[in-house]
């Protein structure tokens, strides 16, 4: 409708490089274009975290700290077998235990692939457990100790069945089957596509293929090949998966450590047939998710069910072992890549065959990295899931793209070497992204890329190497994202949304956005989030929180301010349109007449004025829409450079320095962005060098279900890190801001791997790059001389 649309001019381009303007037709009630950050007061500043004082004093309330009157404590009974038929479950003795208030048997577990039932089969009456840790039952008692004691009185009659743990074993046609029948599963954006299933192999999914890769490879002047293997990584959130479920006659309240309050509410409402207005989901401080706290799981439904049965609030928190065996993981992959190119570097054809295991779930993907980052018309990707009797995988920070980039960015480096090109030069030729072009330039300069020596030329036993790799991640937006801004009569301001702060700092960013619009300081804004009593906000996964919720926050502030200006305009002898808010005052644009914000608010007829805004479409439109979510037209990038030393006698890789150059649209809070990029890099190094879930192939037990033998980077392994963030304006929304969490981890492992290659002249194609892997690659490990 033309009358509702206005043409406006937006800054576009990279600040300090090439900044231009672009005309956009945008809805009339959108806040006006924001200038680049240099001209703003609150946005783009490193405002200290508003919840910092609560977090450094221990006052912050995490879900595990929630204590309700009469609260019961729940524990879950889990399978001790990797594969078994449950012939019977007898809970009577447990129910008679002192202090026990409710027992719940889990019949239809969530969060994994499930067989499509075929009625009448004799087997259907018995549930099967398919991994060690598969939840069977839960109970609630007056103390955690009483719950644990009672749990041991539940009698389960198992009929053990053959199982398979090893990925390669599971692919064999005679391997024990994880599922006998075709399965279905739910992905985030709806049901997964129906794919062939033979034995334990589900797939291949070839939907990302385009052109004729075989022909492209035949046309190549050079073909580079490699097989890469990546391990299973676990999330290891410091705060465990936890909730307090409080089922009452008038509705259900759930305090939960989650990345998506509104999503949990919708899932719970559906599971229990409750209207949305009878389900409330709350999270205050949240101790890390990394993808694993996105949806309801068996533990959530168990706690809710127990609360319903017991008529009391029920607390359920997983212990560390449960976290490790049954709270999700990043699936393993095996990737065989063939990449054909012409002598000038042009890619003529790419063929990737990938498989991996998410245990009893689907999702062992290599992501959209190879298909998206470099130009190649003839591209084939065949990827399959292999079921194993292991705990279900789930999304973990940049799912798919992390293992995908580890393999593909090494193959690209290998191609560069074969072509006699610098890795950066090759990427200049095949990477169409103008952002990454600038990131390579900026990063190479700051890193000192010109110091790089030929592979393996480093002298001595402690060899030094330099490497780089690139990141690609789609710009995701949750369209279903709303935010309310309230101006209260005393001049104070509230922001309200169900969006949650999982440590990324969105609380502070929301205050900055609203403060900018209202001419106040961020500290003056009260941010009330993490509660579905407020307008439904986006999830905190897919690096979409900032892109989704800051535009509605700004628009809501803008609209609330318009309402306030209409109230106060007469007293200033001006029209509302002629007023501006700046420096804590509202006044005429020429500054001749103004009153304080507080004086303006005092003129309100009611205690408050309020505006709710929801995420508008990107001004330039979306690349693709998928239900509540959409993908922006331009992806998010990043280039990382790593300097490593490799001790060729002991196999230790030490990352000494990382330079990371990233973009996230308009940077909202540089220091918080830097924090998140640190996190991505450190998790990426940890994935590259240390982390691995180890399952015993003979018993199916996880052997390192702790934080001691499951090894994670800590302070001594932390390199010097320099982060540079481009200001990249696209004129897409009221804030033009995007996320950074996932782009910041994707390039790390391949940058380290390329640096290791540069150091020792031998390419490591297996993760983690442990001392054992490095020494093996160097040919330093003696063959076994004696039998055990």
């Amino acid at each position, binding site marked *: 409708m033309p009358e509702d649309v206005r043409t406006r001019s937006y800054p576009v381009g990279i600040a300090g490089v090439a900044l231009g303007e672009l005309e956009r037709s945008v809805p009339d009630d959108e806040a006006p274009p924001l200038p680049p950050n240099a001209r703003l007061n609150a946005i783009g500043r490193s405002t200290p975290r508003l919840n*910092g004082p609560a977090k450094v004093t221990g006052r912050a309330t*995490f879900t595990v700290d929630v204590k309700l009157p009469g609260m019961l404590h729940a524990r879950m009974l889990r399978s001790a077998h990797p594969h078994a038929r449950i012939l019977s479950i007898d809970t009577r003795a447990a129910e008679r235990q002192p*202090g026990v208030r409710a027992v719940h048997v889990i019949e239809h577990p969530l969060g994994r692939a499930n067989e499509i039932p075929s009625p009448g089969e004799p087997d259907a009456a018995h549930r099967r457990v398919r991994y060690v840790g598969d939840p069977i039952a839960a109970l609630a008692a007056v103390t955690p100790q009483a719950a644990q004691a009672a749990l041991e009185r539940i009698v389960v009659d198992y009929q053990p069945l053959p199982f398979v743990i090893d990925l390669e074993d599971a692919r064999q046609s005679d391997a024990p089957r994880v599922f006998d029948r075709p399965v279905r599963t739910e992905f985030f954006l709806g049901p997964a596509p129906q794919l062939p299933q033979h034995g334990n192999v589900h797939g291949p999914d070839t939907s990302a293929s385009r052109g004729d890769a075989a022909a492209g490879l035949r046309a190549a002047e050079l073909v580079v090949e490699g097989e890469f293997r990546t391990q299973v990584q676990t999330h290891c959130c410091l705060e465990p998966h936890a909730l307090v479920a409080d089922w009452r006659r008038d509705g259900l309240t759930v305090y939960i450590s989650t990345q998506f309050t509104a999503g949990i509410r919708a899932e719970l409402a559906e599971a229990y047939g409750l209207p949305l207005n009878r389900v409330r989901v709350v999270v205050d401080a949240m101790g890390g998710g990394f993808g694993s706290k996105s949806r309801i799981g068996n533990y959530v439904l168990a706690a809710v069910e127990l609360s319903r049965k017991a008529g009391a609030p029920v607390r359920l928190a997983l212990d560390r072992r449960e976290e490790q065996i049954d709270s999700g993981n990043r699936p393993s992959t095996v990737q065989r890549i063939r990449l054909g190119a012409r002598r000038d570097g042009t890619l003529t054809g790419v063929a990737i065959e990938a498989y991996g295991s998410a245990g009893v779930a689907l999702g062992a993907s290599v992501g959209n990295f190879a298909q998206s980052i470099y130009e190649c018309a003839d591209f084939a990707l065949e990827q399959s899931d292999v079921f194993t009797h292991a705990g279900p995988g789930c999304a973990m920070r940049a799912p798919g793209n992390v293992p995908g980039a580890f393999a593909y960015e090494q193959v690209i480096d290998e191609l560069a070497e074969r072509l006699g090109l610098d890795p950066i030069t090759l990427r200049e030729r095949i990477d169409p992204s103008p952002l990454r072009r600038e990131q390579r330039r900026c990063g190479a300069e700051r890193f000192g890329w010109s110091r790089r020596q030929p592979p393996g030329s480093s002298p001595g036993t402690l060899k030094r190497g330099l490497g780089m790799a690139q990141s690609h991640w789609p710009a995701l937006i949750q369209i279903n994202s709303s935010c309310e801004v309230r101006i209260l009569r005393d001049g104070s301001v509230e922001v309200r949304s169900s969006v949650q702060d999982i440590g990324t700092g969105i609380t502070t960013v929301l205050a900055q956005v609203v403060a900018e619009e209202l001419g106040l300081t961020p500290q003056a804004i009260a941010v009330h989030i993490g509660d579905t009593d407020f307008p439904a906000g986006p999830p905190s996964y897919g690096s979409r929180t900032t892109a989704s919720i800051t535009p509605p926050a700004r628009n809501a502030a803008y609209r609330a301010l318009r309402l306030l200006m209409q109230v106060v305009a007469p007293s200033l002898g001006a029209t509302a349109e002629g007023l501006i808010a700046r420096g804590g005052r509202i006044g005429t644009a020429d500054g001749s007449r103004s009153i304080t914000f507080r004086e303006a608010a005092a003129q309100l007829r009611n205690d408050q004025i309020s505006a709710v805004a929801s995420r508008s479409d990107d001004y330039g439109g979306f690349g693709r829409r998928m239900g509540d979510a959409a993908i922006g037209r331009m992806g998010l990038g990043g280039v990382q450079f790593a300097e490593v030393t490799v001790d060729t006698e002991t196999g230790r890789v030490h990352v000494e320095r990382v330079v990371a150059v990233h973009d996230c649209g308009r940077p909202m809070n540089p220091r918080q962005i830097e924090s998140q990029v640190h996190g991505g890099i450190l998790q990426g190094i940890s994935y590259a060098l240390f982390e691995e879930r180890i399952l015993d192939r003979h018993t199916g037990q996880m052997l390192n279900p702790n934080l001691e033998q499951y090894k994670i980077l800590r302070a001594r392994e932390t390199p010097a890190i320099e982060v540079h963030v481009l200001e990249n304006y696209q004129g897409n929304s009221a804030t033009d801001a995007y996320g950074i969490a996932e782009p910041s981890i994707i390039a790390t492992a391949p940058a380290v791997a390329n640096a290791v290659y540069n150091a020792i002249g031998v390419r490591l194609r297996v993760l983690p790059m442990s001392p054992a892997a490095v020494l093996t690659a160097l040919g330093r490990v003696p063959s076994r001389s004696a039998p055990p």
Partner: protein
Amino acid sequence: MLDKTPSDGPDAAQRPEADTVGPYAVPITLRVNGMTHTLSITPETTLAQALREQLDLTGTKIACDRGACSACTVWLDGAPVCSCMVLAIDVGAREVTTIEGLAAGEALHPVQAAFIEHDAIQCGFCTPGLIMSCVALLRRNPRPGEDEVRTAISGHLCRCGTYPHVLSAVLAAARAAES
């Protein structure tokens, strides 16, 4: 259903030795943040549990419960320890200091302030323990080098990756204290 909470054990006189208590609840005295508390705990209760569950001092976090992540770090007589690997009954007369005892009223400890200033916080779950270790370091060594800070926090696991900002915060707090 008949409930019985394990609180009333046999008479002390019936015990084999008078110096033996438990397995039922035992009264103990804990000195925490300058206050003396009397509480009733079973012998297997860890200090971390006693602080969180009985004294509502939930700033002390439990993340691994095996001494492997140091999230539960508190001071015993000024020395940082994993409170998940200390039995409450074994604390005795030693003074316990938790994150709640660090700030003086509303005034943050300089290390706490530096953590905010340097954004040495993301999710914040490991933060109280980290701060306890960092303050203990500065009390022992007011001008540590970066390597000494790394050593002091080497037992801590921060999954969000705040280490670079923790290092800069602690070093800055040390510099500020000197000037």
